[in-house]
């Protein structure tokens, strides 16, 4: 599947898929990673939370760039889904099992 480029024609479906992956999938993935960061960071509770929120926008940016540079839209979605599930799962597990003061 062709990489997006200004030189070659692109399929409309692929572009829409990548936009959705970047905007929606990226939002969810960045939020999940930021939650994990806030949870596992060795900083104190408010510091870890603020640091995680401040890094969310960078994570979102990286997720969007990934969605458009991945070799195919399905790979973009797959990676975002894996990242979301792993960090979301870890966060939920940590919240349930480990209390944090």
């Amino acid at each position, binding site marked *: 599947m062709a*990489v*997006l*480029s*200004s*030189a070659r024609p*692109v399929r409309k479906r692929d572009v829409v898929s990548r936009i959705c992956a970047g*905007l929606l999938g990226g*939002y969810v993935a*960045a*939020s*999940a990673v*930021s*939650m*994990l*960061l*806030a*949870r596992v960071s060795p*900083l*104190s*509770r*408010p*510091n*870890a*939370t*603020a*640091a*995680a*929120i*401040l890094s*969310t*926008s*960078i994570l*979102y*940016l990286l997720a*969007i*760039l990934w969605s*458009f*540079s991945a070799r195919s839209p399905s790979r973009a979605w797959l990676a975002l889904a894996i990242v979301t599930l792993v960090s979301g799962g870890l*966060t939920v597990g*940590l*919240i349930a099992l480990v209390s*944090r003061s």
Partner: protein
Amino acid sequence: MKGSFRSSMQWLHIWTGVCAGWIIFLVFFNGTAAYFKQEITTWMKPEITAATDPAKSVEGAVAFLAAKAPDAGTWTIRVPDDRNPVSEVTWRPRPMPGAAPVEDDDDDDRASPDRRATIDADGHPLAARATQGGDYFFQFHFALHYLPLLVGFILVGLASVGLMVALTTGVISHRRIFADFFTLRLRHGQRSWFDAHTTFAVLALPFHVTITYTGVAILAFFAMPWAVFANYTSPRTFYAEIMSRPQPPKLSGQAAPLVSVNTVVNSAEIIWNGGRAETIRIINPGDASAMIHVDRRATGLIASDPGNTLTFNGVTGALDKTSPGRSAAAAATFAVFGLHEAHFARPALRWLLFLCGALGTAMVATGLILWTEKRRRKLLDPGYSREGFRLVETLNVAVIGGYPATTAAYFWANRLLPESYPSRADAEILCAFGCWGLLLAWSVVRPNRRAWIEVLGVASFLFLILPIVNAQTSSRGTVANLMSGDLLYVGFDGVLLAIGLLFAAAFWTGRRLSSRTTPALPHGASSPGLTVLEGTE
């Protein structure tokens, strides 16, 4: 692989740029104006005279509040400073018994008009024309206008993410970032637009990166705060830990006279050893439980809130407590807000930031124009969609040429509308948007190149004549201001003239080029986009 990565980043740069471009242009333009939001408000209320004595103004503010809102739960007074010669007061009713205390911030920008007032330097309520002043630019900058707050906020948020993506991909896809900094090929059509775009971008790149990151990070606190839920069950607990705002005291029900507020401010400024008070918040005024919080002004500090609040007993005037030092989290958070809002900037730095903002605005404008210039040749291909091209071309005129003209119309309305006009503040903005609507309609019906020239002409006219309108209507003309050394008015006229001359130069360039170039095809409905603004190819 590397080549294809770069070209996909280039593709992303072009398309996020053109999708987010118009909103980002408006955000940049209004945000740049908002660096001088206080000064704009003062200019738009020519009744305000220079400050004489802040203490007198504060005293007047307390007297005004005691008469106007004796039963309020909170009085807030913003003390006059170098940038604002008057006291801004707001008040808030007592929370209902049993109801949760209102814990939104004490941001006096958002108090409703019937709970705010301005007290002049002599301590009397200011009799000034109703206007939104510089707040219009500030609000438009993050939430647009005439839209529900949430809708405007989401649109600006999406556009800001687009800006962040466009900025990053622009740097990634740019091969010769250093060499191109020194490249400016004038009068080469498309290449000149490209050079201008990269020069504006690279010249102020550190500013663009900072303002974009801090802008998106501020939005993230509202739009993506999910990290809070990893550590807290309720965001309230987190914000209470960060802000460490003292709990409001319980109402005692016993009346007790309020201590002299200026005495309290004096003791605070002695404790701060030279620091100045910015905001005074009086909780439960007139009650035995009254408290006075004095916030320190953030001059010279990046953080938007230095966290140096002193709390005094409102009846005895004794120091009750000092706020605990900021945690690292709060310091970092307030630094991000502070870097974006630039409360710390003294005049020289403020002008530099204003200039950087103008470069950012120019970067967006040239980028949008470059999009059309690059695609002009494709119009010769009958298979190429003209609707999209025509849309971009038209919106470019209406936004890049039309919106600045709109702000000039806003200032015109401020000077020309009668002072007693019903809901005058809204009418000023309605005038501005009426002007914008006309210019939009004009750019739709006219051939694009003519529309550019005409809208640029209107913009330069509106800006260049404005100092004369001001001199005729406000008894504070350029000459009088030069004589009295009123820097605010002189500076305002200077900026108006600079913007007006810029548009006039663009207008003349457009005229000169349009008389020289011959379009590749005759004008007509079949080739609406085939007009060349710049360059003889």
